[in-house]
């Protein structure tokens, strides 16, 4: 949301030069969302609105606890409720706090054409600097998690900032502070991974043999991680992707074809210039005019006296 940051950028959208990177002592941070401890109270959603001064329009009820029904420019985090029937026929209420995953390899940033509209800080947080956003929606195509939302009012893209403004001054994100069960934690990625490991051992001892940490390698890991009871089936948690990665279409579009296209355009222009130098212009010669005149005469072409002034024929 803002670029008044005490941290260095390690990535800047649509920028080919190396960002300033002298201050490299920063810890990589992570938010750990322990889905197995979540009670679905939505305190995190309320805290997010409160801290970020977001107020969504009141929506409508569709028979689920999801409220509002989807992320939008005013809803940067959202509890998604799933009623899951496991193999034994037991009902499990799965509640996942959805929002930006802060990928180490951010597809939104790679797709963005506006210099400095999306940045990644040295601590790993991916942030939208909205004043630089041009509203093209490329970040939406780049994201493997379907997170960014374009405002229909100001035509800028919005998503969770991981409270980069709070983190920059040593506070935890607002959702973390508000969570009453400790299901959301924040710290260095190393500590969070370690803590998740302990929690997973505990879950396994209680019968959740597929419990595990969601830190998908397809995007080089994320700075928002989940502890899941069923880490082998992340998609049951309201469609959390099994193997998220930046779409091959986007990688190709933002990768290979950019230099190849510019080279192709340059080659076409240079070929034209070389042809001009080698073969030169194709110029009508006096004998062409003479030959043409002969044909016109042979055909008893209309006297040409008025041809200079006549109206043109429409096609």
């Amino acid at each position, binding site marked *: 949301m803002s670029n008044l940051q005490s941290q260095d950028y390690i990535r800047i959208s649509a920028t080919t030069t190396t960002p300033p990177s002298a201050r490299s002592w920063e810890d990589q941070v992570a938010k750990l969302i322990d889905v197995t401890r979540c009670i679905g109270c939505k305190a995190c959603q309320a805290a997010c609105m409160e801290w970020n001064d977001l107020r969504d329009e009141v929506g409508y009820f569709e028979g689920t606890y999801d409220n509002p029904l989807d992320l939008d420019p005013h809803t940067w985090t959202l509890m998604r409720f799933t009623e899951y029937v496991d193999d034994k026929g037991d009902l499990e209420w799965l509640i996942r706090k959805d929002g930006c995953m802060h990928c180490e390899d951010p597809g939104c940033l790679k797709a963005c054409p506006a210099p400095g509209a999306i940045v990644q800080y040295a601590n790993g947080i991916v942030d939208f600097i909205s004043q630089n956003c041009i509203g093209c929606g490329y970040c939406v195509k780049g994201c493997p998690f379907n997170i960014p939302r374009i405002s229909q009012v100001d035509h800028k893209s919005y998503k969770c900032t991981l409270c980069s403004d709070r983190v920059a001054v040593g506070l935890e994100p607002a959702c973390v502070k508000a969570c009453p069960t400790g299901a959301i934690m924040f710290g260095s990625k190393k500590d969070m991974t370690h803590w998740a490991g302990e929690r997973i051992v505990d879950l396994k001892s209680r019968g959740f043999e597929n419990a595990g940490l969601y830190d998908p390698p397809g995007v080089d890991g994320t700075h928002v991680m989940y502890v899941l009871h069923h880490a082998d089936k992340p998609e049951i948690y309201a469609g959390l992707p099994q193997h998220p990665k930046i779409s091959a279409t986007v990688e190709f579009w933002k990768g290979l074809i950019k230099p190849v296209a510019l080279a192709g355009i340059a080659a076409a222009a240079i070929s034209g210039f070389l042809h001009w130098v080698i073969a030169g212009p194709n110029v*009508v010669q006096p004998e062409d*005019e003479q030959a043409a005149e002969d044909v016109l005469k042979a*055909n008893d072409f209309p006297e040409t006296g008025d041809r200079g002034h006549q109206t043109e024929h429409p*096609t």
Partner: protein
Amino acid sequence: MTRPYGTLTRNSTVTRLNHWLTAGCFVLLMLSGLSMFDPLLFWLSSLFGGGESARAVHPWIGVVLLISYAGLIIQFWRDNLWTKDDTAWTMAIDKVLENKEEGVPEVARFNAGQKFVFWSMALLVPVLFFTGLVIWEYYFGTYTSIPTQRAALLIHSLAAIAAIIIWIVHVYAAIWVRGSMRAMTQGWVTPGWAWRHHRKWFRSLATTGSTGPRPNATPRK
């Protein structure tokens, strides 16, 4: 318009206005499009008042281009139908490139190169338009799935690159073949120009007593 004695009409006023409307749209689309395609060229968006303005105006120019190019298709499609002579002309492209046109099949109103440009754009402009609608975030951002939009973006980019390369060929050909530019700005060519580059077209005008751009329906005699 004043023009020298004895010249032929290559392009009517309507055709020329239609052409230059299309050309203006194409150049603006190319500049604004490239600014969003490669960060190295983002500075081109300044020509439109910044990235947001470039993003906002680009699709509207595309709408105008589609309509404008449709006008060119209506005026030109008949004279761009491919014939056996065009295949022979294409086989002799090396002679054409060396400016040695004797022995190359006589050309009607348009040569095979011009027909290639015409039909390529007739294909690429609608492709660019419809993929452009899919990624027109302002109005149609929620109408299609994200995978569809990703594919549309890729196709849009590839089609645009192809169109730009063809446009360079088109512009260079107009510089290379002297007299072509005037044929599209002021509309006229000399009989010698028509004889040299479009002999079959020239003969059809001569035998029907037409001063162009199309022959009269019946021979004069």
